[in-house]
């Protein structure tokens, strides 16, 4: 029985989880680093505990401290959100040992899925498609031999790494031989282990993932797929559900494969099975992300299912309230991630004080925000400020809605990628659904301003100056209300 939940995260995902907890009537405990004292999730929760200094290693990643706070505050469960400790078998195990419910899969499942080689072997046993490659770490000679069998180009990956990123690629034996020593160094640096494996490099691919839910009773269902091909290395920008790249037949195949993988892993909770899809309609297992995904909102928008609620119900031991036939997606949904970074300056993270925030609304729109007016965006964490979700009866409607709300959204004081999103959604290739994972790198053209907007800026500046002078002559107190004065004060000294 769960009455109180500790949310071991920050930002928009903490608020997301807290919202569903509140709807379920659960009491909530937030944690915060010293940099996050003012953050919305602290104010949203029923109780809040400081867990350390700003660096995540000293706060949000300190499992033993989180467990102590959970016990002290009387929480029975810990929801890890995403990132931070959400995929840590050690933390899940420590929760078990402390008598706390970890909202996620079993520690053994996390262990299995955290190993690229183990996950590949599991999927191979199911006879489901994998990227041609090696299921175990190999020595240099082994890698060269395997590359000959798999076919060039190939990419080298850290065997101990969790993400799908390749360290480097090679299109001939000579290139591969030259690349191996450097790759071993990078793997050692990144995950403390220089073991490498090798996979065929498939180009012009799309990133498809299938949302799954599994319960303690052994049932696994899927909630359809998402596509998140609009991405930079390690940073997705736009997700959508369903995917334009799948027809009915292929969708059934991919989703069934995801459910079989989930069952084989004994999966409990919400997860996403990730695949690469090539231009010929072949799909390849990439990994099973054993946690809530950032893009879960688009699946919620088309299915109507609250995935966080499902997670909490499953964690409490209850069985899934949906059979596969109850999952009836409707329409199309897009999610734009609003990030504090500067697309026109090599995506450098940005910080600043949000002096003004206006979030959009109206039909078909959901805003999941982790910030508020008055907040200072700090450099210590992920730059994700908020997620904007647009639903429409068709993909076209979802796109024009998203385009509308990207214009409504107003964030003053910190640079964001709102403009990049506007440009992406204006692109014909995005509208046509013709893109792949390197679309952003290859296709993005910075938009140009409307000519008349320059005039609007010029007139604002001139009229403000003129009025200030006019007021100076007339005597300020008489001619302006108190609110006008406040406005002016803000204007002269207030923002940024």
């Amino acid at each position, binding site marked *: 029985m769960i009455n109180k939940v500790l949310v071991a995260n920050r930002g928009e995902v903490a608020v997301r989880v807290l919202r569903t907890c509140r709807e379920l009537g659960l009491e909530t405990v937030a944690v915060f680093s010293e940099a996050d004292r003012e953050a919305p999730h602290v104010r949203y929760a029923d109780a809040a505990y400081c867990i350390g200094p700003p660096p995540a290693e000293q706060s949000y990643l300190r499992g033993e401290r989180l467990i102590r706070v959970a016990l002290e505050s009387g929480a029975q469960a810990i929801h890890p959100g995403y990132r931070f400790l959400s995929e840590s078998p050690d933390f899940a195990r420590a929760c078990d040992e402390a008598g706390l419910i970890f909202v996620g899969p079993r520690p053994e499942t996390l262990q299995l899925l955290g190993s690229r080689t183990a996950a590949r072997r599991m999927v191979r046993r199911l006879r489901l498609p994998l990227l041609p490659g090696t299921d175990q770490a190999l020595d240099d000679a082994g890698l060269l031999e395997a590359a000959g069998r798999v076919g060039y180009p190939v990419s080298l990956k850290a065997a101990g790494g969790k993400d799908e990123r390749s360290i480097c690629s090679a299109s001939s034996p000579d290139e591969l031989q030259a690349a191996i020593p450097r790759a071993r160094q990078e793997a050692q640096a990144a995950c403390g282990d220089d073991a490498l494996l090798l996979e065929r490099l498939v180009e012009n691919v799309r990133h498809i993932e299938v949302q799954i839910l599994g319960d303690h009773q052994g049932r696994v269902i899927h909630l359809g797929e998402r596509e998140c091909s609009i991405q930079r290395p390690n940073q997705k920008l736009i997700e959508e559900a369903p995917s334009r790249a799948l027809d009915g037949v292929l969708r059934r195949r991919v989703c069934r494969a995801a459910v079989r993988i989930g069952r084989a892993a004994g999966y409990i909770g919400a997860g996403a099975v990730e695949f690469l899809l090539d231009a010929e309609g072949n799909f390849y297992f990439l990994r099973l992300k054993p946690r809530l995904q950032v893009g879960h909102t688009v699946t919620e928008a088309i299915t109507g299912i609250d995935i966080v609620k499902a997670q909490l119900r499953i964690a409490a031991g209850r069985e899934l309230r949906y059979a596969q036939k109850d999952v009836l997606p409707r329409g199309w949904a897009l999610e734009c991630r609003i990030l504090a970074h500067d697309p026109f300056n090599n995506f450098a993270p940005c910080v600043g004080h949000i002096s003004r925030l206006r979030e959009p609304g109206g039909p078909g729109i959901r805003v999941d925000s982790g910030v508020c007016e008055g907040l200072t965006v700090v450099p210590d964490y992920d730059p994700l400020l908020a997620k904007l979700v647009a639903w429409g009866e068709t993909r076209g409607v979802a796109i024009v809605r998203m385009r509308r709300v990207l214009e409504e959204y107003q964030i003053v004081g910190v640079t964001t990628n709102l403009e990049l999103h506007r440009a992406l959604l204006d692109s014909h290739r995005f509208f046509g659904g013709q893109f792949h994972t390197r679309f952003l790198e290859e296709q993005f053209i910075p938009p140009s301003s409307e000519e008349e907007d320059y005039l609007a*800026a010029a007139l*604002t500046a001139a009229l403000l100056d003129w009025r200030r002078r006019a007021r100076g002559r007339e005597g300020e107190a008489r001619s302006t209300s108190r609110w006008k004065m406040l406005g002016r004060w803000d204007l*002269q000294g207030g923002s940024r």
Partner: protein
Amino acid sequence: MKYQVVVEGRTFEIEIDAEGKVWVDRQPFDVDLEGIDGLPQYSLLVDHRSYETHVETEEAGECQVMVAGRTYQACLQSEPTPSSEPARYPPPSPAGSDRVCAPLPGLLAEVRVVEGEAVGQGQVVAVLESMKMRLELRTSCAGAVQRVCAAPGVEVAQGELLLVIGQE
């Protein structure tokens, strides 16, 4: 009051009379700027076109203004009109003639016309480099170039007369 406003390389000559009537590059515009109480935010109507602008920072002669989600840097030079003090800029030219002056101090990078050449209204006649920006200087009326007063490559002072345009 007469303003020369440079917004990211575009120059606007804005004149506001005592009643608040507005001319942009000598064309009359119906302009209404209304502040949203308590905020550095404005509703701007320009010949009924509606804009929302947000002033992010404002310092002497420089203003950061957000329009449609983009931030623009506006540099402002002003002179009173009519004025008893000596004007830093020449008085408004008679109809059909124009005096192109440097809105900011800077390097005169290009002069694109020669004396006697016919020019159209709004034509770029010179380019000034100032504050890391290239400012295109335009004519406010059609006519002929009567005089070129400065050569490319020289530093010019603010308000310095560069070209005189007269009627053909």
